[in-house]
Structures are given as structure tokens and as C-alpha cells.
């Protein structure tokens, strides 16, 4: 009797621990900071800052391909460079404060490279990335963004599960 009561009281906690083995607080707090970064820029400038347009606007410095020389890209490329340097700096501040040493990934270089190419193509065709659609677009209750997020989430989960099934998953 007492045991089953204890069990039923513990069950949600166990399930929660299974779903979130590392807790949720640092995820949620980090997310709030990400949102605040967007909000600060938006309130000051009216600009909704996504991260992926940095790629093609930066290409406008070196490539004459008309796609990259569009007026709105050339006009925004300077602040996008500053924004990206800020992102790198902000993460560096986090790393110095909380860890004090550099961190490097165990994900193989060929996965980073091939995945990066597809991410680069996909964000440009799909009009945005995880921050553009996933944070700013969803925050705007945009139908387009919600569909895009649902699409990339589903496909990404399927891809990662397939790779895991092939024995190349990343173990925690």
C-alpha cells in the first residue's frame, strides 16, 4: 500500500528524469537569453534578427552573384557581421565565466561539413533557420514559420534516428 503510493508519487519524477536527464532550468534560462537578445535589437531598431542571412550577405563582400548583391542584403551586411561577432563573444563570455577552458565537439568533421552544406542550402531556400523561423517566426505566430519548423523538426528527428539505427548515434 505504502509502496504503491510511493511508486505513484515517484512515477512522474522518474518519467521527467528520463525525458530531461540534465534538467530543464539551463535550457529554459538560455532560451530566455536568446529571446532577450532578439528583443533588445528589435525594440531599438525594429529589426528582427535571424542568424542565417549572415551567410549570404557576407558572400556579397566577395561574390558578384546577383543573389548576394541584392540591395537589402548589401544594406544589412555590416550589422549582420557585428551581430555574429556579438554571438561569438557572448558564447565566449559564457565559456570563460562557467568553464574557463575551451570546449571542442566530438561530432566528426565530415558530419559537420556535409550537414553544414545542407543547412546552408536549406535555410536559404526555406527563408530562415532555427532562430529566424523557430524563434522569431514562431514568436510572430507566423503560419509559414510554424510549418517550416514542423517540417525541419520532423525530418531532422527522422535523420538522426536513422543514423542512430545505423550505429552512428551520439551517446550522452
Amino acid at each position: 500500500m505504502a509502496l504503491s503510493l510511493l511508486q505513484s508519487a515517484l512515477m512522474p519524477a522518474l518519467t521527467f528524469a528520463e525525458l530531461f536527464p540534465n534538467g530543464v532550468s539551463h535550457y529554459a534560462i538560455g532560451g530566455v537569453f536568446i529571446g532577450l537578445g532578439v528583443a533588445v535589437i528589435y525594440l531599438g531598431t525594429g529589426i528582427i534578427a535571424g542568424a542565417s542571412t549572415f551567410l549570404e550577405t557576407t558572400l556579397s563582400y566577395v561574390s558578384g552573384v546577383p543573389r548576394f548583391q541584392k540591395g537589402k542584403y548589401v544594406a544589412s551586411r555590416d550589422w549582420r557581421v557585428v551581430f555574429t561577432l556579438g554571438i561569438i563573444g557572448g558564447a565566449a563570455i559564457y565559456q570563460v565565466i562557467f568553464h574557463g577552458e575551451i570546449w571542442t565537439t566530438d561530432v566528426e568533421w565530415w558530419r559537420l561539413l556535409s550537414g553544414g552544406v545542407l543547412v546552408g542550402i536549406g535555410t536559404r531556400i526555406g527563408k530562415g533557420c532555427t532562430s529566424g523561423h523557430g524563434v522569431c517566426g514562431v514568436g510572430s505566430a507566423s503560419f509559414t514559420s510554424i510549418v517550416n519548423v514542423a517540417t525541419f523538426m520532423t525530418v531532422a528527428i527522422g535523420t538522426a534516428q536513422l543514423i542512430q539505427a545505423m550505429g552512428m548515434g551520439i551517446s550522452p
Partner: protein
Amino acid sequence: MSEKTSGKTTGKQNERGPLFMPLILVGGLIFGFGLGFSQMAKPEVVLQFLQFDDFGLLFVMGGAAVVTGTTFAVATRLSGNAPLTGKAYTRRLKSFDKNVLVGGGIFGIGWGISGICPGAAYASVGLGNYLILFGIGGMFLGAYLQGLWRKHRTDATSPTTSAD
């Protein structure tokens, strides 16, 4: 399905106030700090989410979207414009077409293979993760290939109409 592309500037580009770039930098610092703090700058953590080992990433996007959603909802009800640019406060609404699905699908495959997306990859550099440069190099290559392909397609089909 007929959401219009937003973000048209109401004034000229050179209306930017002197605090424009400093504010962008501060916003970027907070954004990058959040990507570091949330662990999303680590491809491993993203892949563990996609493999269903840790669902914490839902709280990253959720937490961020709640903050931006509240900010956009309040600001678009204000009558004024942004102080540093004179731009009107709008929501982020992009038009829907099949590219949203095709692009999302290609992005999803890449994200599922690598665990990296643009903002998180830049932040990863800040962690000292020099290996992420393979991923960022790949993204630039992908964006460049897409631009070339668009140029090719535009030239081939209708040289008189411009892309977009």
C-alpha cells in the same frame, strides 16, 4: 497562406542613430550567451535531442519564443517607431510556398546529420570549438551553391524578370 514579407524600411538606411551598431553588438552578446548557457552551441546536445535522449531543447526554443512573442505583441501595439532607425514595429511574416517545405526538409536533413544550425554554430566558435569551422565552411558553401543555382535558373528561364 498569403502572409506578406514584412520588414520594409519606412525611412532611408542612413537614418541609423549612433547607437545602432553598439545595440546590435549588445543584442548579439546576449543572444550568444544564451546559446552557450542553453548548451545549444554543442552539436552533441542537439543530436541527443533529435535522438530522443534529452528533450530539454524544447525549453530553449520555447523560452526564446515566449520572450520574442511577448515583445512583438506589445511593440506592434505601440504607436511609435523604433528609436534608432525609425522603422515601424512589425511581426516576422514570410510568404508561404513550396520552398518553405523543400528548404525546411533540406535543412532538417543537415541538422539531423550534424546537429548544427547557423546561430548555434557561430556561438560554438565562442566556446573555442574550432572544429565547428568545418560546419560553418559548409554552410557558406551551401548558401553559395544555392545562390549560383538560383542565378543559373533565372538566366535559363526568364532573363528579364529578376529573382524574388
